[in-house]
């Protein structure tokens, strides 16, 4: 079957024609297909925003939560059932404004899930407000004199938080994106993919054209070592976060929070505790 069809619920997305988010939806569908993830073993969970609508177009278990909290939710899903492939999706506001705390802690917790940020550097769904990722001077309804504060750089922040897989990608480059999503899902631990995804309606600065001109492709640098944290950090600082490709991967860190879970998933555990065991527990209180 056509990979997109296989993972699509046939609902026409309500995004503006030309929105970068279409490409990411397709990217996830193709990646799932290439990895042959059974539809019922895939959970796509998303936050609130134009980006958040993505989960509603998947033919898989899918969840559309509340603004900024999709990572704790997705981690709960994974902890409950480690056999599921869990992909969390959200906007730049969702993940780096209201949800920043969870984003950092999910990274250090390093559960085996994939997080894709649909980064348009603006709030699409609220009709054009500034994002913490908007550049200084960016004029929006809420920053009539231009955004005033230093933007956060998702790549730099996530390396700082100890992420074990970091990639950046671009809606306009599906091939690379699909490759990076596949590798992310395959990564044993938390994988984060920051996808620059133009909002054609409210961001007239960071357009497809702009990203094409400004994103440096790391894969062109043959000497680049994806396992070198210092180098990864330097590259991000040097390019001011404007680079794409697989930036960093660390395959040596365990994800111990997940390892507390035995072979069988929590969701499959025997729930009944025998009476002798109960009496043994009660004994502790005497």
């Amino acid at each position, binding site marked *: 079957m056509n990979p997109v069809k296989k993972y699509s619920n046939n609902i026409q997305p309500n995004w503006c024609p030309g929105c970068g988010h279409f490409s990411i939806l397709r990217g996830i569908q193709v990646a799932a297909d290439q990895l042959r993830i059974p539809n019922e073993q895939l959970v796509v969970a998303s936050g609130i925003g134009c980006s958040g609508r993505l989960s509603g177009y998947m033919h898989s278990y899918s969840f559309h939560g509340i603004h900024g909290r999709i990572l704790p939710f997705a981690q709960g899903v994974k902890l409950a059932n480690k056999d*599921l492939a869990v992909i969390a999706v959200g906007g730049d506001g969702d993940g780096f404004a209201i949800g920043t705390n969870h984003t950092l802690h999910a990274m250090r917790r390093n559960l085996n899930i994939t997080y894709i940020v649909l980064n348009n550097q603006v709030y699409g769904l609220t009709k054009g407000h500034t994002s913490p990722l908007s550049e200084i001077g960016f004029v929006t309804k809420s920053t009539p004199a231009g955004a005033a504060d230093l933007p956060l750089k998702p790549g730099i922040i996530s390396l700082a938080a100890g992420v074990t897989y970091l990639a950046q990608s671009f809606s306009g480059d599906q091939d690379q994106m699909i490759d990076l999503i596949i590798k992310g899902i395959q990564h044993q631990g938390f994988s984060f993919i920051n996808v620059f995804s133009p909002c054609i309606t409210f961001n007239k600065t960071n357009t497809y054209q702009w990203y094409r001109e400004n994103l440096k492709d790391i894969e062109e640098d043959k000497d680049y070592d994806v396992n070198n944290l210092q180098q990864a950090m330097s590259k991000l600082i040097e390019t001011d976060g404007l680079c794409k490709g697989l930036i960093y991967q660390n395959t040596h860190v365990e994800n111990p929070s997940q390892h507390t879970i035995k072979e069988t998933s929590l969701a499959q555990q025997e729930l009944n*505790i025998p009476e002798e065991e109960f009496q043994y527990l009660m004994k502790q209180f005497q």
Partner: protein
Amino acid sequence: MKDSLTIVIGGIQGEGIVSTGVDLIKILSRLGYYGFGSRRFSSRIKGGNTNIQVTISTRKITAVEDKIDIILALDKDTIACYREELKEDGIILYDNLLTIEETENAEALPMTEIAKRKGSPIMKTTAALAFLGKVLDIPSEILGNFLDNRFGHKGEKIQSDNMAVLEEALIYEEGIHERIRKSLASPMKKISRPVMIGNEAIALGALMAGCRFMAAYPITPASEIMEFLGAVFPKYGGSMLQVEDEIAAINMAMGAGYAGVRSMTATSGPGISLMTEGIGMAGMAEIPVVIVDCQRVGPSTGMPTKHEQSDLFTLYYGGHGDYPAIILTPSTVEECFEDTGRAFNLAEKYQCPVILVSDLMLSLSPQTIDPLDYEKIKIDRGSLLKEKDLESIVDGKYKRFTLTEEGISPRSIPGMKNGIHHVTNVEHTENGLPTEDSEIRKQMMEKRFRKMELLKKENTLKVIENDSDFLFIAIGSTFGVLKEAVEASGNKVDFGSIRMLKPLPAEELSCTFEKYKKIIVIENNFSQQLTAILKEKIGKSDKIEAFTKYDGTPFTITEIIEKIGGMEA
């Protein structure tokens, strides 16, 4: 020979005062007595006075008595605080290093001295226990066995030093107990019973109910629940995570609940405020999740180590928009266990958040209980589908939110073939897809609330009848005080408790209330929260009256006895 004795053990915070009290209750529980301990502590780690008031009795008790038989003081403040409450024949045992005004009834004992000599100063609590043992005529083998066991895992040196302190104290001035003995009548049955706090009963209840995931953020007085489950889960294939904040805790618990694990979180007032949005999501997305609220003094940071019951309003009415939720209000340690079990069944049956409400005194007061009943918790997973139930469904056509008569829609979980569906917290169709259709919106709202109608038929009020025109009601730990007060006052009034606050079975309550001239609601908060909820739901405003206390301390038995007396007039 007395039927009950009340002892205060007090000293400097951080020196093991509370443990000593709990040890005393445990030792006496092994002999067949019942004990109940009420803690007083501060929001600081070391220093400052802390104490525990313990009542020991031959019968089951649910609160401490007000008047004190023995003060065991390891600091001066303890004496200052409690001297007033000492009975006429009461005695004070104090560390002879303290300089206090000498009185007839005060006995200086070399607690620190012996501890220092035979071990280290911190072991003065062991000496204290020995002296108490002598005064109460506890057989020394019992003491020895208990302490041997207690310090067993702390290393040989600590264990043997403590035993040496114990021995030395036991032989000190042989005759002392002749002079100041406080003998208890023999217990009814010489069987050993468990000693627990409410939080332990909740955690144990959760484990027995099949809860296998907990995410939480520490807070007084709820942390013991995460600590207990964190310790036992690995053995039973469960997982407890301390997460970054309460918002993460509720959302992670929901994620696990959605994915098919019985899951929970526990917190206190400030955490409940932060979870408000998440709890609403569980209502909207129909996710089973259990939230425990161990109430403390609010508002805001309030008095983190003091007792109050002032989260009822926010639990009952909090959260934007209308959504169904269930609130259970156990009032004894045994009910904490059973109701936690029930909470997980209700959460899966009704697919909504279930809140179990405790309070600081219920959560933290160590007490002797009758052995918990294994049979009380039976796991019932409600309308959770099995993979084979889905066989006949065409892939993609499963209706997660199908409009049923009862409002409950059979639920598939991720991993199940043919059960694939979308869930959104936006208003949705039966398929779970977002909609802005006003007709569907209306049907979905009604469906979600229809579920609660079933529950309204369940019995929730427990009333102990004494043929009075007055009904006293209390929930949480206040019920225990009320019970003692009614009994002490000669069973002059009817009294009871409400075990499920939401949905409130208004008809049943209305019917019961009909019989009384007045319903007096005893509660620890300023705004008469329980009273207000009853008035709103049941009407009869003129009949229902509140009796409140909001100074951070629980009601005393005497205060309620006085109130009962007042009703007669």
